[in-house]
């Protein structure tokens, strides 16, 4: 659909002049850098990109982009981005949203834009807390999380973003860590290339209100030990020395050590991001830590018609059959009478 011009751009071409205002050390800084790089990778010129956000610390991001940008209201980014995309399908449309913005107040627009498979790149910045309002629990905070709005701990289970996205018929899901520049750039690039609603969950550290929430994987050493970076067509091998792998045990995943009990690389599951059935994608996305590693990379990416394309096609089809192009012509063909 999109008639985009590709020419070589630098990360700096996507950076606006505005002073960045996040707390020093906030994960959003890293994400912003990765996004600038990813955009240069993709090569769509800044004026053909629109970045839409809601409200939250993370939602300030559009101000720091030298693209078209709209910092809207809390939770409604997906709906606004959808209208924008349908009105001008040629634009590359990004939605930047937090766990509160996206999954609390914005939950409904999130699941519906996924269901419609609207061609948006949805960057879900998950720090498991409401940063901007100073530290209340969010729909992704763990059960029992203690904070000012739950001084005795919460009594609710969190959403797991991938699970909810798949429940809404999601066609693309990827995960990265805020600081993890190569994987981050890779999945953001993949998200942009995917036609349809691409959800990228960014495990982000709010240094002020929820420091260490992703400590298992936010530092490089931890990541080597605790994460598995999934890659399409590659075996699911992980560990500091690539010594572990995932296999299927009945309907469930299991961690095995290569070389032990005769297990070789051949026994290890090969990642296929393209299966329509999401059983395995979901299991990978929700593996319980520390028994299992935390999955990063593109977990699911399937082809399906997008709303914006289909509606454009529908209009073209109707217009091919019906030559009427002005209101007057239309009315004159209807039930009319003349007063002379």
């Amino acid at each position, binding site marked *: 659909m999109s008639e985009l011009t590709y020419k070589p751009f630098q990360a700096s071409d996507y950076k606006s002049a505005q002073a960045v205002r996040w707390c020093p050390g906030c994960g959003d800084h890293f994400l912003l850098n990765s996004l600038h790089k990813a955009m240069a990778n993709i090569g769509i010129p800044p004026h053909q990109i629109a970045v839409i956000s809601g409200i939250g610390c993370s939602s300030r991001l559009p101000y720091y982009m030298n693209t078209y940008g709209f910092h809207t209201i809390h939770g409604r980014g997906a709906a606004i981005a959808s209208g924008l995309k349908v009105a001008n399908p040629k634009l590359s449309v990004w939605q930047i949203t937090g766990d509160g913005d996206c999954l609390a107040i914005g939950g409904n627009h999130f699941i519906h834009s996924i269901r419609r498979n609207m061609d948006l790149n949805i960057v879900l910045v998950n720090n498991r807390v409401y940063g901007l309002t100073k530290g209340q629990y969010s729909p992704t905070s763990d059960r029992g999380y203690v904070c000012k709005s739950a001084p005795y701990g919460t009594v609710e289970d969190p959403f797991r973003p991938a699970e909810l996205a798949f429940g809404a018929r999601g066609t693309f899901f990827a995960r990265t860590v805020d600081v993890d520049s190569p994987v981050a750039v890779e999945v953001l690039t993949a998200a942009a290339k995917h036609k349809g609603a691409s959800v990228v969950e960014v495990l982000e550290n709010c240094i002020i209100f929820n420091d260490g929430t992703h400590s298992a994987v936010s530092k490089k050493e931890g990541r080597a030990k605790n994460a598995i970076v999934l890659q399409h067509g590659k075996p699911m091998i992980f560990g500091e020395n690539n010594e572990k792998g995932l296999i299927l045990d009945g309907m469930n995943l299991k961690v095995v050590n290569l070389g032990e009990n005769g297990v070789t690389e051949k026994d290890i599951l090969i990642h296929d991001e393209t299966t329509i059935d999401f059983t395995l994608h979901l299991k990978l996305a929700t593996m319980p830590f520390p028994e299992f590693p935390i999955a990063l990379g593109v977990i699911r990416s399937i082809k399906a018609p997008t709303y914006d394309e289909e509606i454009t096609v529908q209009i073209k089809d109707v217009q091919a059959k019906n030559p009427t192009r002005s209101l*007057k012509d239309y009315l004159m063909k209807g039930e009319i009478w003349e007063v002379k």
Partner: protein
Amino acid sequence: MAEQVKKDNQDNIVIRFSGDSGDGMQLAGTLFANISAMSGNDISTFPDFPSEIRAPQGTLSGVSGYQVHIGPKVYTPGDKTDVLIAMNPAALKINVKNLKNSSVVVIDTDSFTKKDLEKALFSTSNPFEELGIGNISVIEAPIGSMVKESLTNSGLEGKDVLRCKNMFALGLSCWLFDRPLNLAESLIRTKFAKKPIVAEANIKVLHDGYNFGANTHASVPTYHIATSTKEKGFYTDVDGNTATAYGLIAAAEKAGMELFLGSYPITPATDILQELAKHKALGVKTMQMEDDIAGICSAIGASFAGSLAATNTSGPGLALKSEAIGLAVMAELPIVIIDVQRGGPSTGLPTKSEQTDLMQALYGRNGESPVAVVAAKSPTDCFDAAFWASKIAVEHMTPVILLTDGYIANGSGAFKIPELENYPSIQPHYIKKDQQNWKPYTRNEETKVRYWATPGTEGFQHRIGGLEKDYTTSIISTDPANHQLMVKTRQEKINAIANFIPIIDIQGDANADVLIVGWGGTYGHLLSAVNEMNENGKKTAFAHFSFISPLPKNTEEILRKYKKIIVCEQNLGQFAGYLRMKIHGLPIYQYNEVTGQPFLVSELVKYFTKIMEE
């Protein structure tokens, strides 16, 4: 037909088709209205159906009515009924309060059995006596059995046969009002184009009804309605919602923009979505979103993209959209928000009409967040109102709330197919491609309107949003003096629209002491009442407001001229209060009714006379 006695002093006539929800009264009424309009009459209609999709058959709550007012000069569907078609006892009972002494009632005797009377909660076997209208003229027709008889070999069976009863009523009405049947025939053939058997059966029954009138009821006076002197041109019949949709399409065409509607169904606004959804050939994009908020938000997104963006809703939906309207105010993006007002508060009376959302439209948002507010005055005026709302939105970079109501949205009138050349131009406030030092909130100093750059335009990338911005640099600002300046500027931008809209003019007798003031969908009733006053020598002036925020420039000057101002509205006095806020010391009287029903011209005249003589 030689024996017909023409009632020729009769120029305006009200006929009401009334029966069970399943009796097809809306269709009979619509066809009758169309035929009349095509015969050159002015028409005004009032469909009045139950809120249930299908209430129990034969009960009072299941009655569905369609009233048509025809004549040379018609502004309302009329207060009282001249001819009532009552397909069952419930229909008779519901409508009895609107009968005149001289009314004619047509009944289907087959539906006036003991069981039918019981369903309508009659306790005797003579409904007319029981209702105290024993001396009214009644045309008794065994419609059900005649239709069955007539369609024996038509190819239709069972229920489908009885569905044609409404055409008998229509045929009989055509006889009563001296309408040629060929117009009705062609409309029926178009309507049932895909089902020729049904079409022919309906036409057969239409003739039966007509013949029944001609053959058996020579003694009842029939009517011949004088033709009105309408402007020359081509006409079609539209209801208010359709006219609203057309107005948006026309505005987009005139402005050279793409039209986008973001919507969520809600009674009585849904038809605007449904009408626009048809027009893919004209390039119209509609999105049925997951809720009312997403409806406006998708439109805000489309507006950001550069479309002529609109959203349609009714009261509770407007409440939900409040926060997003505030965003459009702050982002200074154009958007047309159509509120087809219905009975409130809360879910209220969703199928009834009132004017109770005015204050919400003006003030229902956090912060000082002024918008433009426009109101349509009749079904066909919805076209102009939607056109103007669009023009103001894109020329002044502001949300515009267009208020219509259930009464004009469902009512219809004869609509002259517009020549767009004769409409004012619409010039979106785009940046000039060579504009220097542009910032997103750079303004035209006179109108305070910011210049619009749409995504995709090279070199004009920018960020906007709901946080307060600096007047000069357009970046986020919490500076106190800047905030004060921006608050004032947003208000001034709306105020300045007054320089670009028509001034208010006075109808009726401008030199009267008493001025009637109205706004929105009550126009027809108020004009009729004012005319009646003046015809009876009671000098009355009339000012009807289509532009509410801002008010037309000459509003204060005009209002100051009168000794008594009677503000008439279907609420507890919202416009009256607004005028008091804006203009000090006006001698305001209020006529307020909140019944979900249109005004009665006779009641208006009574009240005006009382105030005049006070």
